[in-house]
């Protein structure tokens, strides 16, 4: 047994990865071969020393940073409609986990899907909208990332460098662009992403004003709910006032009132 293999054998022994027979053989080798005892003891000593080291704990900023990042991505993911091919891919993946019954089901589904593909190819307009939407969301991400580059936190900066390919926008420009998208973009998903991204700049007065205005203008219930959520994060009191103002208005539809009621209840405000 050469040195390389012997060292691996020692480590596997120390890790407890050997079978009973292998352990017996290995211990017998160590006991009977003097040339193996020293290298064995050296590795064992290093192994034991590494086990005495205690793991160090990071401060809370790591967890906080991770969960902030995750909430942004979760929102982005939920506002992104799945493409037809993504849905098919997930479907097949789930089916393949249940062989062989899944394979039979798959065969049936392939026939149905073939017909559906034809339909999809004839209506590529929605696909194009989706591409535009994805580009918009990506652009928003870049804009947010460009600000993170100037952040005091190195974590934000590293993250931003990864996300940002080409953007030299200043903070004011980013906010202006985000507000512009929030108020005037035709696509509800872009407006929703812009609203959520603006919460990163909650100390800017113009952000609160813009979100308040957007809440008043917004027609889509889902976006309205997201914006109210964002407003609660920025200024709880202002959000409360706004909710009651809209709730009292004669123009507010019954389903809108139901939505506000739900928000007030779930947020306990």
């Amino acid at each position, binding site marked *: 047994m050469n040195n390389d293999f012997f060292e691996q054998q020692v480590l596997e022994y120390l890790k407890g990865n050997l079978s009973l027979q292998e352990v017996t053989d290995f211990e017998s080798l160590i006991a009977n071969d003097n040339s193996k005892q020293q290298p064995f003891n*050296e590795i064992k000593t*290093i192994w034991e020393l*590494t086990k005495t080291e205690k793991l160090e704990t*990071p401060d809370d900023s790591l967890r906080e940073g991770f969960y902030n990042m*995750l909430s942004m991505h*979760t929102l982005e993911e939920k506002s992104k409609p799945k493409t037809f091919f993504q849905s098919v891919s997930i479907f097949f*993946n789930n089916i393949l986990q249940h062989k062989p019954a899944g394979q039979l089901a798959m065969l049936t589904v392939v026939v149905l899907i073939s017909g559906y593909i034809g339909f999809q190819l004839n209506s590529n307009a929605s696909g194009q909208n989706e591409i535009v939407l994805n580009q918009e969301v990506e652009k928003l991400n870049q804009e947010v990332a460009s600000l993170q580059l100037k952040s005091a936190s*190195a974590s934000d900066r590293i993250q931003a460098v990864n996300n940002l390919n080409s953007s030299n926008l200043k903070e004011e420009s980013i906010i202006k662009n985000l507000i512009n998208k929030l108020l005037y973009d035709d696509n509800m998903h872009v407006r929703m992403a812009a609203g959520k991204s603006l919460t990163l700049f909650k100390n800017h007065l113009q952000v609160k004003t813009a979100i308040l205005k957007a809440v008043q203008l917004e027609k889509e219930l889902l976006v309205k709910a997201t914006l109210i959520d964002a407003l609660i994060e920025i200024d709880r009191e202002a959000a409360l006032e706004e909710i009651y103002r809209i709730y009292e208005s004669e123009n507010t539809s019954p389903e809108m009132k139901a939505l506000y009621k739900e928000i007030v209840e779930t947020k306990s405000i």
Partner: protein
Amino acid sequence: MNLSDEFMMQKVKEGEVERLALLFERYHLELYNFFLKFSRDKDLSSDLTQNVFYRIIKYKNSYKSHKKFRTWMYMIARNTRIDAFKKNKISFNSENIESLKNFKSDEVLEMEEQESSALLKKALSLMNFEKRELIIMSFYLEMPTSEIAKVLEISENNTRVRFHRALTELKSIYNKISKL
């Protein structure tokens, strides 16, 4: 209920990114300590750990469900470390053994109870990054050779040879500084 790393990552890939929280809770401490072994900078290690999870989301579509999540994660961690060190121009500290003559009086004597452990830490810090990562993966992370080979994207034979060189160097440095 399937709570395996691979199942969770597959769900993340399918769009349920919130499931990454469980993987974060499982691995952030281990990753943070992995980075600390390359740099004693706690802020940097914390940033790099978060960056690994950011990259996991960014590159989620490249994850293959039949692959072990931990191996894939350490491939990302390794690249994250290399990119960050290159960008911040953090290079291997080539401080030589002779320049450590004051090491024993300055550090080790203050930690008599943990002298050997402190010596090992010091010896590890004197190794170059490539050899150091092999020792970390083998001893601290307890990865089998096959897994290390996948992380480093080299053959198992090559991994064994490199590990032998790394271990020889570690023992040599350890012996030298313990005689100072």
